């Protein structure tokens, strides 16, 4: 009986990773599976064979997911919109954090009279480190907890899509923000310093940062694929 519980538990996890299935649906399908197992056990088959037969007749998780998504349309879209919001909020928070670190680095560089080029390079390197740190936290969180792994499988498609949109929008805004901050700077530092800093920062800001962000998103997509593979085995 213990072996059966293990098989059912792993089947439930595969099923629960599908976005269209609510907890109640999984419970109802589990009860069906157990009824079928009970029925097939009377034929004297092994637990594995009985389970395989019952699972086969019930339908694959993919089949079940696509059928349930038709009857749970409201639920599926509420979930998707929630994940899109989570993706938007997380990406916006990440952007703000990196921007904040960048500003601190800039004012520190200026206050200790570092050369503008060095300030811009230091600033961009620090920002890249923060992006990498956030990415590391994401990978660690995903590996640390089974529940989080399941959530990642469920919601990543929609949050990653939104995050990509946020990145695209932010990248379009970067130039405008850079120009605005340089107007502010022109009141406190000399024009030649701005010119040097701006050149270094434009190279860093428009080449290095987007590369790091794109690398982060690619990693997130790869992690998601890995989660899918884990789910199907």
């Amino acid at each position, binding site marked *: 009986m213990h072996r059966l519980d293990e098989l059912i538990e792993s089947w439930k996890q595969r099923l629960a990773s599908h976005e269209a299935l609510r907890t*109640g*649906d999984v*419970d*109802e*399908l589990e*009860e*069906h599976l*157990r*009824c*079928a197992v*009970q029925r097939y056990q009377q034929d004297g088959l092994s637990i594995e064979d009985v389970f395989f037969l019952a699972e086969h*007749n*019930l*339908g694959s998780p993919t*089949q*079940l997911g696509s*059928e*349930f998504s*038709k*009857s*749970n349309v409201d639920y599926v879209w509420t979930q998707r919109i929630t994940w899109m919001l989570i993706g938007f909020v997380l990406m916006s928070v990440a952007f703000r954090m990196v921007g904040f670190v960048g500003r601190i680095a800039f004012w520190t560089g200026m206050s200790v009279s570092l050369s503008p080029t060095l300030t811009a390079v230091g600033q961009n390197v620090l920002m890249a480190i923060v992006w990498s740190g956030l990415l590391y936290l994401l990978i660690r969180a995903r590996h640390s907890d089974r529940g989080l792994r399941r959530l990642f499988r469920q919601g990543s498609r929609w949050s990653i899509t939104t995050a990509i949109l946020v990145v695209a929008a932010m990248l379009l805004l970067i130039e405008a923000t850079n120009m605005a901050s340089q107007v502010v700077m022109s009141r406190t530092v000399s024009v030649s310093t701005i010119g040097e800093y701006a050149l270094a920062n434009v190279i860093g800001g428009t080449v290095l940062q987007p590369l790091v962000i794109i690398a982060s998103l690619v990693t997130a997509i790869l992690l998601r694929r890995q989660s899918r593979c884990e789910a199907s085995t």
Partner: protein
Amino acid sequence: MISKELIGASAKPLVLSVLAQGEDYGYSIIQRVRQLSEDQIEWTEGMLYPVLHRMEKEGLLVSSWQVSDSGRKRKYYRLSKTGAKSIAREQAQWIAVHNTLAKLWGIKPCTV
């Protein structure tokens, strides 16, 4: 063996008619339909549940979680008033189709 399309189309009247005999749960509904059809109607078992849920949303069925004899939680379905009324309509439609085909094939039409 009955085609997938016909199985899909007949699911609603079959569920309504099984539940007209009293409340029941998914696995048992499937077994009863299989026995009554002499193994002609074989649903992919999991596909019945979205149908039940849709019918519940349409107000044809009412569901409740109960504890079965085995001590496990089980979801039972029964007909709502609307569901009970809709059986007559389903019956009229299916008999109309049956009788049309019966006339074409020269077999005996049926009456209610």
